[in-house]
């Protein structure tokens, strides 16, 4: 016998897992940025400092979408808004 609350909690756990699929995008994006950064350093080793800072900045911005997914997952797990609707 599945209670209403149990069903909501189970679906929230699955939803949190699905929300973390958002981590794929930033991973690919950061990898591309790091690859181009490495090739830029290889072409122009003198500009290592500014390439590094530009790369880190771009990676941090690319990471934001993944963190939105993370925020959704954390909310579903620890501050579930759906349980109040029962």
């Amino acid at each position: 016998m599945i209670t209403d609350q149990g069903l909501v909690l189970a679906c929230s756990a699955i939803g949190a897992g699905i929300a973390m699929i958002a981590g794929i995008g930033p991973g690919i994006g950061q990898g591309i940025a790091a690859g181009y950064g490495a090739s830029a350093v290889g072409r122009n080793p003198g500009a290592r400092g500014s390439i590094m800072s530009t790369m880190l900045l771009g990676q941090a911005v690319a990471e934001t979408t993944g963190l939105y997914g993370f925020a959704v997952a954390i909310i579903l797990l620890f501050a579930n808004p759906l349980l109040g609707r029962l």
Partner: protein
Amino acid sequence: MGTERFAGEISIGVNGVLRYKLFGQEVFLTTTHIGMTLITLTLLIAALLVNRAVRRADWRKQPGRFLNGAEMLVEAVDRFTLGNMGTEHGGAFANYIGTLFLFLMLSNMAGVFGLRSPTADYGVTLALGLLTFFLIHYNGIRYQKAKHVTKLFRPFFLAPIQIIGEIAVPLSLSLRLFGNVLSGTVLIALVYGLLPRVLLLVLPAFLHAYLDVFSGAVQTYVFCMLTMVFVAQTFDRRDETL
């Protein structure tokens, strides 16, 4: 975040330590308050020590190691700010950026010292994001006057998107910092909760080194950098050093 307990004694949320009443409301003294107070006290004591060293400095003698370190830090912050915001207006922001840098650095690394990072509380990061938001628009109106508002309506039908874009700046800034620090906190708490006692002596050190120190430093750098970039955008376009 609530005050849930996770896996026995491991907790990842903000925990209330002391409960008291204020104007009829029940308020908690949370781990965030304690961490921020400790960090602020650390910074204050460091500032007083530096002030004392600077005042006692004798220009005829070589400066000591402490004074040299402090000077290097100040010069690094000045160079960082002036390099990103231009030499004309950048100097006015060096103090704010330096303070932000020191505070964020210490609070992101608080996990190493056994505290819960204050930046893993959305209240703290949202306040920092809103500070950036007000800095952007205060300086925008100061340097570009009415153009700062009218440029939102340049292609008129795109105005709603531009306004949402302006509002998204503090949200994405604060969520980025919060999410990064919180994900580190959650990961470390899970590892502490799952591993047997023996492994706990070795393994978390690497996690702390990566998630607290490295990731914390990168996020500090990114927050300061983005604040500078956004504020520098509002300066007059004639400033060619940007």
